C-alpha cells in the first residue's frame, strides 16, 4: 500500500472541531445528532430509571421482610412490582444496551456516526418521553398495577377501569417505536458503514451481538406492539379482542405477549454476552477462543428464541404434546449458551487473567449466569414447571439471569468503557469493593428465593402469613437487597468522584484490541479524523501502527481522510469485505427528531385522556415534522 503523509496540524484539527461542534446552549441540547452524546445520554437516563426501579424494589423488600406487614397497602404493592418490572425491562435494560450500542458500535466499526443520526436522536427522545409518560402515572395516582405482562382480562376495562393500565399499554407501544428505530439504525450502520477491510469475520463479537439484538428486535417487538395496541383498542374504543363474552380470547393475548416476551429476554442477554466477549479476552491477554463458535451460537440463540415462547404458558392447560415440543426447544437453547460459556472458559484457561474490576464483574457474571441458566433448564422441564411457575423459584431464575447475567455485564462494561467515554479512570479499589458487595448481596438476595418457591410462596403477593416457614428467608432476602443496593451505591460514588478527581484515562488503558481504543479518551466529535483500514480481527494488536486511509478523489473515497471529516461526511462501504462505495453526509444538528417525538407524545397523551383535540394536535405536530423532515432529507 502506498503511504503518503498528511498530518493535520493543530489549527486544522481545531477547524474540524468547529465543523463537528453542536449548536451552543439549550437549543444544542435538543438538536444534537452525535451518536456519542446520544449514547451517553441514553446510558445516564437509563441509570436514573435503574435507580428508581431499584429503590422501588427496596420498598417492596421492606414490605415483604416481615409477615402481615402494613408498610405498603395491597394497592401500592401491586403498583410497585408492576412498575419495578416494567421499568427494569423497558426503561432500563433494553435502552441501556441500545445506549452502549449507540456509543460504541460506530467507533468499533470505524465510522464517524450512525447511518441515520437524526433517527438516532429520535429514538432517544421517544424513549425519554415514553419514560416520562409512564412515570407521570404517579402524578395522577394511578400507576399500572397489572404485572409486567398485563394479562387480560384482568387488564381490560371491566376489571381495571382506571387509567392505570393505559399508562402501561400506551407506554409500551410508544417505547417500542424507540427500540425498533434503534434496531433499524444498528443494522444499516453495521452493514453499510464499516471501515474498509472489516469483513464480517473481523467484526468484534460485540458488534455481532448488537446485530443479533437488532434482528430480534425487528421481528419480536411487533408482537408486543400488537398485544398492547389491541389491549388499548379494547380499553379505549371498546373492541372485543380480549373479551371472552364476545368471541375474544384470553390465550391470544398471552401468545402475542410472549412471542415478544421470550425473545426479549435474549434481546437483553445477547448484547450482555457481547460485552463479556469483549472484556474476557482483553483481560486474559489473548484473542477470544472459538470466535466462529460464538458468532454461530449468537445467531442460533436469535433463531431459537422465537420457538420457545409457550414455556411461559405451561400451566394454561394446552395439550401436553404441544407443550412438550416447546419444552424440548427450550432445553435445546442451552446448547448455544453452553458453547459461549466454554469459549469464555477456554479463553481464560489459555490466557493469563488480570483481575481488574471489569474482569471481576465478568467472572461474577459467569458464576451467576451458570446458576440462572441451570434453573432455566429446570423450568423448561414441563412437569417441573407446573410446580415452579408463578412461584418465587421463577423470581429467583429471572433475577439470576436479568439482574445477574445482564446487569453484571453492564457494570463490567461501565468499568471497562467509562474511561473511554468520560476520559477519567474509575477507582480500582472502590470498584472491587463494589463488586464484592454486589456479588455477596446478590446471592443473599436471590438464592433463598429458590427455596421459597419450593416452600410454596407464590409471586406477586403483597403479604403472607407467618407459620409457613417463609419468614426467616424473606427477612434474609430483604437484608441482601440492601447489601446489593449498597454495592450499586459504591459504584455510583466511584463514578461521581472519578469525574472530579479521577486519573486521566489514556487512549487505551487496558491494551484492548478494538478500534474504539484507537481514539483519544474521550473521543473527538468526529471519532476518526481518518478512517482506519482494517486487516485483522484485532486491529490494535496486529496492526501497529494503525493504517488510516487518506481521502481519494472520487465520491466513493473522498470521505476517508481528513478532508472527509472536514466535509462532515463518513464513507459508505459495501459487500462482505467492506469495500468503499460512496460517501455519506452526516446531517447537521436539528430539533426535528425531538419535535417529532414530542408530537407523538402529545398524541399518546391525547389517546390516554381520550381528548380528541390533543390527539389531533399531536398528529399534526408529528405529520408536519415528518413532512418537513422528508422534504429536507438529502434534498433529493
Amino acid at each position: 500500500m502506498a503511504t503518503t503523509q498528511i498530518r493535520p496540524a493543530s489549527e486544522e484539527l481545531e477547524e474540524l472541531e468547529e465543523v463537528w461542534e453542536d449548536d451552543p446552549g439549550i437549543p444544542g441540547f435538543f438538536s444534537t445528532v452525535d451518536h456519542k452524546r446520544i449514547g451517553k445520554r441514553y446510558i445516564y437516563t437509563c441509570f436514573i430509571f435503574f435507580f428508581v426501579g431499584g429503590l422501588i424494589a427496596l420498598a417492596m423488600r421492606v414490605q415483604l421482610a416481615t409477615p402481615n406487614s402494613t408498610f405498603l397497602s395491597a394497592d401500592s404493592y401491586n403498583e410497585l412490582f408492576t412498575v419495578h418490572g416494567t421499568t427494569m425491562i423497558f426503561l432500563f435494560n433494553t435502552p441501556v444496551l441500545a445506549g452502549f450500542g449507540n456509543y460504541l458500535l460506530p467507533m468499533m466499526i470505524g465510522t464517524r456516526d450512525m447511518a441515520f443520526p437524526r433517527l438516532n436522536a429520535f429514538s432517544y427522545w421517544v424513549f425519554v418521553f415514553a419514560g416520562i409518560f409512564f412515570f407521570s402515572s404517579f402524578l395522577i395516582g394511578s400507576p399500572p398495577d397489572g404485572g409486567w405482562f398485563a394479562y387480560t382480562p384482568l387488564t381490560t376495562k371491566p376489571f381495571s377501569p382506571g387509567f392505570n393500565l393505559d399508562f402501561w399499554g400506551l407506554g409500551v407501544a410508544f417505547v417500542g417505536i424507540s427500540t425498533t428505530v434503534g434496531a433499524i439504525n444498528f443494522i444499516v450502520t453495521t452493514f453499510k458503514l464499516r471501515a474498509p477491510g472489516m469483513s464480517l469475520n473481523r467484526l468484534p463479537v460485540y458488534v455481532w451481538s448488537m446485530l443479533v439484538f437488532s434482528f430480534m428486535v425487528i421481528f419480536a417487538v411487533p408482537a408486543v406492539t400488537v398485544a398492547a395496541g389491541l389491549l388499548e383498542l379494547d380499553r379505549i374504543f371498546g373492541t372485543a379482542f380480549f373479551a371472552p363474552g364476545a368471541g375474544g380470547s384470553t390465550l391470544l393475548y398471552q401468545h402475542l405477549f410472549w412471542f415478544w416476551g421470550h425473545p426479549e429476554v435474549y434481546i437483553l442477554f445477547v448484547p450482555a454476552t457481547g460485552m463479556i466477549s469483549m472484556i474476557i479476552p482483553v483481560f486474559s491477554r489473548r484473542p477470544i477462543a472459538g470466535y466462529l463458535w460464538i458468532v454461530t451460537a449468537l445467531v442460533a440463540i436469535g433463531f431459537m428464541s422465537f420457538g420457545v415462547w409457550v414455556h411461559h404458558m405451561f400451566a394454561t392447560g394446552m395439550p401436553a404434546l404441544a407443550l412438550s415440543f416447546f419444552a424440548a426447544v427450550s432445553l435445546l437453547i442451552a446448547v448455544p449458551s453452553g458453547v459461549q460459556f466454554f469459549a469464555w472458559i477456554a479463553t481464560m484457561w489459555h490466557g493469563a487473567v488480570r483481575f481488574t474490576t471489569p474482569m471481576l464483574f465478568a467472572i461474577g457474571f459467569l458464576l451467576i449466569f451458570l446458576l440462572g441458566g441451570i434453573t432455566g433448564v429446570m423450568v423448561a422441564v414441563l412437569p417441573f414447571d407446573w410446580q415452579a411457575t408463578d412461584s418465587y423459584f421463577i423470581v429467583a431464575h429471572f433475577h439470576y439471569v436479568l439482574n445477574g447475567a445482564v446487569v453484571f455485564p453492564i457494570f463490567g462494561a461501565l468499568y471497562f468503557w467509562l474511561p473511554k467515554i468520560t476520559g477519567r479512570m474509575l477507582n480500582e479499589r472502590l470498584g472491587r469493593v463494589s463488586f464484592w458487595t454486589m456479588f455477596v448481596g446478590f446471592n443473599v438476595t436471590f438464592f433463598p428465593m429458590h427455596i421459597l418457591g419450593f416452600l410454596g410462596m407464590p409471586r406477586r403477593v403483597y403479604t403472607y402469613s407467618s407459620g409457613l416457614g417463609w419468614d426467616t428467608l424473606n427477612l434474609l432476602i430483604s437484608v441482601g437487597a440492601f447489601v446489593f443496593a449498597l454495592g450499586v451505591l459504591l459504584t455510583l460514588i466511584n463514578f461521581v468522584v472519578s469525574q472530579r478527581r479521577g486519573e486521566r484515562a489514556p487512549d487505551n488503558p487496558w491494551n484492548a484490541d478494538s478500534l474504539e481504543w484507537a481514539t483519544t479518551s474521550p473521543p473527538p466529535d468526529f471519532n476518526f479524523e481518518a478512517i482506519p483500514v482494517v486487516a485483522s480481527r484485532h486491529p490494535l494488536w496486529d496492526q501497529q501502527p494503525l493504517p488510516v486511509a487518506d481521502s481519494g478523489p472520487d465520491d466513493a473515497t473522498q470521505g476517508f481522510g481528513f478532508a472527509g471529516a472536514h466535509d462532515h461526511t463518513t464513507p459508505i462501504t459495501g459487500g462482505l469485505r467492506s469495500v468503499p462505495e460512496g460517501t455519506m453526509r452526516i446531517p447537521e444538528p436539528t430539533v426535528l427528531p425531538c419535535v417529532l417525538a414530542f408530537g407523538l407524545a402529545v398524541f399518546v397523551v391525547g389517546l390516554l385522556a381520550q381528548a380528541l383535540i390533543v390527539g389531533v394536535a399531536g398528529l399534526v405536530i408529528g405529520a408536519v415534522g415528518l413532512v418537513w423532515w422528508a422534504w429536507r432529507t438529502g434534498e433529493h
Partner: protein
Amino acid sequence: MSRLRHTAVFAWVLAIVIGISACSGSTSAVDAHGSEARHIAGLWWLMFGLAVGVYVVVGGFIIVAALRGRRGTPRRSRISQNMFITVGGVLVPALILLVLAVVTVTTTGALRKAGNNPVRIEVTGERWWWTVRYPDRQIVTANELHIPVGQPVAIGLESDNVVHSFWVPELAGKVDTIPGQRNVLRFTAEKAGTYLGVCAEFCGIQHAHMGFRVIAQSAGAFERWTTAHAEPPREPTSELAADGALRFQRLPCAGCHTVRGSQAHGTVGPDLTDFGSRATIGAGAVENDPSNLARWVRHAQSIKPGALMPNLTLSDDDVRALVSYLESLR
C-alpha cells in the same frame, strides 16, 4: 477465590436441609403427598443432582481457568480450545439435555391421565375466593375441597372473570382457570391431611389472599362428609342464631350469599351453607373464629382491603346475632 466454590456448594446443601426441614410446614412442593407432586419431586431430585454436578464442575473450571495464569503468563494446556467448546459446550450438555427431554416426556405422560371413576369436583376462580361444587352430590361450598385418599379426583377449573391458577404444592402442579375455557386437573391424594392451596396467577388487588384448603380423608370419612353436606343445614337451635337467620335475610347479606334451605340465593359472594365448618374467613385471610367473624361482617375491608364484600353499617345486636347464626351453619 476457591472459597467461592465452597460457598456455592454449601448454599445448595443448605437448600436441601431447609427443603427437608420444611416438611413440617404445609406448602412444600418437595414434601409430596399427591401422585403428581410425588412424580415431580422425584424429577426434582434427579435434576438437583445433575445441577449440583454441572455447577460444581463448570464452576470449578471457571475458577481454575481464572486463576491458572494469574502470575501473568499463560500456562500450556493439553485441553485445546476446541476441545473445551465441543466437549464442554456441545457434547456433554447435549447428553444431559437428552436425559432431561426423555424424563420430561415420560413424566408428562404419567401425569394428568384420566383415572377410573374419579370424584368430580368443579372449581371456579372468583375474585378472590373459590367456588367448589360437587356436581354428582348437590354440594356447593367455598374455599375448601374435601377429597378421598387413594381415589383419583378430576377437578374441573373455570373462571368467568380473570385468570387464576389453582395450586396445592403438596398434591400437584398448577393449572390456570381461564375465562372461556375449561381445564381439568387430575391426581390422587396419597395421605390423609389438610393441604394448603393458593391462587398462583396474579388476579388483582387481593391475589395474596386467595387461599384454600384441600382436606384429604379416608374414603369412609369422605362419604360421611358428602352425605352430611348434601343436606341443608339444620335449623338454628339457639334463639340468638335464629334471630341472626332473620337478620341475615333482612340485611343486604342474602342479596349476595346463598344459604341452602333458606331464602338467601345471592351469588355474588361465597355460598355460606356450611360456613361454620370452614377453617378460615375470606379465603384464608383470617382464622374462622367468632371475634374475627364479627370484625369481618362489619368491616370486611379492614381484613381484606379491596375485597368485593363492602363494609356494612350494622348494630352490635346485628353482629352478635349474625355471628351466632353463621357459626351454626354446618
